[in-house]
């Protein structure tokens, strides 16, 4: 009887609300996000899941990179000039840019040079009151050594600002164009100083981007409203809501019931379900990324390169390509994806050879085998759509050479936090590029600076390698840079602090009535122009 009554109730309800919901729907977009943001300030994280939610939606940068041509494009800076010795870069700023007006802040002036000076001095100047707020860690900038590079930032006039560098570094502009180098409001920061709530700068964001912050409920949602005075173009959506849904199956189910309009990173195995629907489109984009298996090189037995090589020889990557990437990925032949201009296929790349693996283990005195932890990411990323499955495959491969693998999983943000403390033995992780510059695959991942701030999952620090990287950055001669990066690639594959596995494709599913979502081959997603038909 109760089923019957409920049945009738359902029929009645669906009849009268369809239209009403549609009206509300056309003004807002729901994006199913994979994880809580760790912060609303992209300066203090390198997590792709957080960047996707914040960077392009709330903020702007001085310049950006054209995804197709690789050229720099003006954003908040109208134009820029580089001095002859390339140690001074001067930006001319736009004058018509307004910051968000929110419940907690009302701007009294437009964007100007003070904001640029404040934003960057927070990163590099220990005397800036905000420098140590939120831990004082700026992982991206520290791992590429930008804090050692910038000598001073000078306000030339209200709309002109120049950066003086210690060295001429060829990747400086592309680093200024990454999703991390967003511009904060100096006026807002001053206000917070007065009310002594400095940490709100990162939790209640104010930027110049297309959307402004309204509300955040952990594990539930983030709500943005449109920024009425956005300088670049009118924003079509009234509301942008992120539905925080860590489980990828649930995300797909929500796509099917239209509770989500957009979801990033559907699993390869779910693509066929999505493809069979006429109301859902799947975007596919090649992406500059690498999925890898990193060994904690400070921990025995992984401090022995023979052991690392043995592990690399013991796993069957072909099987992984098939089962995890469902043949939607490219097997890596180096630490760089082959679309990078500095790419060189490595002859030394370990192939599947359990016999050799056993021999290497014998040389290392570990023929008895050992136990190890393998950390698998709990979320799907472009570079690794299903780390759990990959971990299981590796587990069964390693069992054949006598190594017992214990798979470890944590919630994503906890996972990253523990990883930064180098609590792991080995980890399945990856990296999506933020700029097309090849340095982006080396410095943030394997430099000593990155080992110090925890972003170097291999915990590997080799001064010789660091020297190679800085040499490559000291010149703008492409041929010379290539030469250095070839050497760096050889070194990585020789030492194997991490084993590059595959390059994944970026997928994004959206309802067919949603348009203009930009996904690029590097960096985060942009919903600035998104609209609903």
């Amino acid at each position, binding site marked *: 009887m109760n089923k019957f009554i409920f049945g009738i109730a359902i029929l009645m*309800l669906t009849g009268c609300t369809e239209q009403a919901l549609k009206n509300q729907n056309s003004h807002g977009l729901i994006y199913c996000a994979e994880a809580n943001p760790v912060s609303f300030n992209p300066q203090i994280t390198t997590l792709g899941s957080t960047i996707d939610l914040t960077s392009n939606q709330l903020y702007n940068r001085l310049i950006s990179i054209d995804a197709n041509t690789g050229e720099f494009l003006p954003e908040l800076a109208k134009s820029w000039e580089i001095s002859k010795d390339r140690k001074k870069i001067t930006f001319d700023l736009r004058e018509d840019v307004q910051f968000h007006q929110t419940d907690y802040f009302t701007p009294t002036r437009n964007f100007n040079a003070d904001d640029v000076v404040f934003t960057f001095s927070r990163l590099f100047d220990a005397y800036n009151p905000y420098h140590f707020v939120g831990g004082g860690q700026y992982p991206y900038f520290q791992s590429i050594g930008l804090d050692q590079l910038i000598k001073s930032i000078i306000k030339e006039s209200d709309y002109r600002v120049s950066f003086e560098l210690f060295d001429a570094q060829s990747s400086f502009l592309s680093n200024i164009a990454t999703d991390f180098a967003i511009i904060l409001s100096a006026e807002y920061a001053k206000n917070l100083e007065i009310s002594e709530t400095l940490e709100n700068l990162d939790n209640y964001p104010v930027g110049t981007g297309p959307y402004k912050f309204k509300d955040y409920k952990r594990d539930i949602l983030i709500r943005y409203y449109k920024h009425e005075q956005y300088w670049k173009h009118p924003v079509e959506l009234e509301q942008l809501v992120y539905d925080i849904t860590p489980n990828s199956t649930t995300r797909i189910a929500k796509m099917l019931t239209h509770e989500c309009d957009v979801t990033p990173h559907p699993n390869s195995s779910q693509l066929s379900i999505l493809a069979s629907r006429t109301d859902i489109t799947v975007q596919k984009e090649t992406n500059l990324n690498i999925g890898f298996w990193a060994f904690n090189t400070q921990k025995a037995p992984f401090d022995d390169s023979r052991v690392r090589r043995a592990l690399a020889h013991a796993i069957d990557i072909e099987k992984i390509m098939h089962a995890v990437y469902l043949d939607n990925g490219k097997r890596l032949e180096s630490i760089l994806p082959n679309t990078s201009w500095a790419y060189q296929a490595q002859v030394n790349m370990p192939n599947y050879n359990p016999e050799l693996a056993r021999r290497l283990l014998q040389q290392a005195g570990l023929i008895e085998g050992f136990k190890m932890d393998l950390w698998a990411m709990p979320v799907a990323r472009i570079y690794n759509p299903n780390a759990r499955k990959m971990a299981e495959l590796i587990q069964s491969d390693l069992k054949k050479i006598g190594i017992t693998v214990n798979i470890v999983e944590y919630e994503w943000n906890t996972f990253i936090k523990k990883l930064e403390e180098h609590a792991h033995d080995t980890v399945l992780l990856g990296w999506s590029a933020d700029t097309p510059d090849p340095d982006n695959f080396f410095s943030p991942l394997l430099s000593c600076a990155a080992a110090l701030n925890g972003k170097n999952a291999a915990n590997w620090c080799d001064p010789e390698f660091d020297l190679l990287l800085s040499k490559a950055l000291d010149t703008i001669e492409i041929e010379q840079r290539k030469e250095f990066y070839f050497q760096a690639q050889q070194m990585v594959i020789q030492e194997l602090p991490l084993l590059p596995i595959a390059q994944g494709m970026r997928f994004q599913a959206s309802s067919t009535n949603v348009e203009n979502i930009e996904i690029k081959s590097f960096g985060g997603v942009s919903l600035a122009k998104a609209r609903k038909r």
Partner: protein
Amino acid sequence: MALEYIFRRIILLCFMLLLLSIFTFSLSFLFPGDPLNNLSGVQNISFHESDALSEKYKLGHSILTQYFSFIERISHGDWGISFASQEPIFDHIVALFPATLELALYALLASIIFGIPAGITSAAYYKKWPDKIINTLTLLGYSTPVFWLALLMIMFFCLQLGLLPMSGRVSLLYEIPDVTGFILIDILLSDVSYKFNAFIDAIKHLLLPTIVLSTYPTMVLIRFTRDSMLEVLEKNYIKTARAKGLSRSQLIFRHALRNALLPVIKQIGLQFSTLITLAMITEVIFSWPGIGRWLIDSIYQRDFPAIQGGLLAVSTFIILATVTADLMHSLFDPISRNQTHGKI
């Protein structure tokens, strides 16, 4: 007499709460890691913070002092901060608990509305076809695991038919300010143009979780009502009434019902603990933002202060609910007050 009974119950309640608090307190030492981290929720304790925190949590003192300071903090609402969010746990609980309570209350209401009449019908038509049908359905409902039922419902109503949403309390595009934490009341209190639509939408969101969650208690209530009704119908005074020539409806509604419902009322109170347990599973499956989902997420994230706080809140609530139900029952049924020993 009644006062003495109530007094006994309250003593029992205090004893239960004492045991619970001791258990919760000891958790911070039983969990892996440093008790100071587990108690405070601060993860990377710097050197100078360490002393201040140790003093606050009386870690240098005897275990008894530590326990009393724990009780003092708990009663002041200082439950430590969560590892995962670095926000006070008490705030999380206050924000999330109403959602669970709301779901559980609606489910309980649904099971009373459907369970009791069904039970009475079943007893009235003992061993006839309505009884057989209800019995079969009850058996079916009893033996269906709640997570499986939930998934089936989602498969059918959400994914196949596309009639109902499968997650959350209301479409996220409706912005409803939190006042009471009960979504339906909040919508009615809110000052938005889409009030009516939001209300309907919230009902649609409620429907499946409520059905799923109410299944088990409904079945329990049907069986209980039926059994107790049958028992009462066997009593001599009923037989007498029947011999006097009363009709079946007179018999049931005038004479049998009141007596038959007494044990059922007690059962309703006892169902609350089962309900909260089942609500956790339901919340996870329907992404219902309640305390159960939060607790399970916390377990997954090894968020020890949160697990501790969540357990304390949920258990305290269940103990209170059970004792209240028991007291209510004794109000209706004077005989039960004569028990010499308290029990829960």
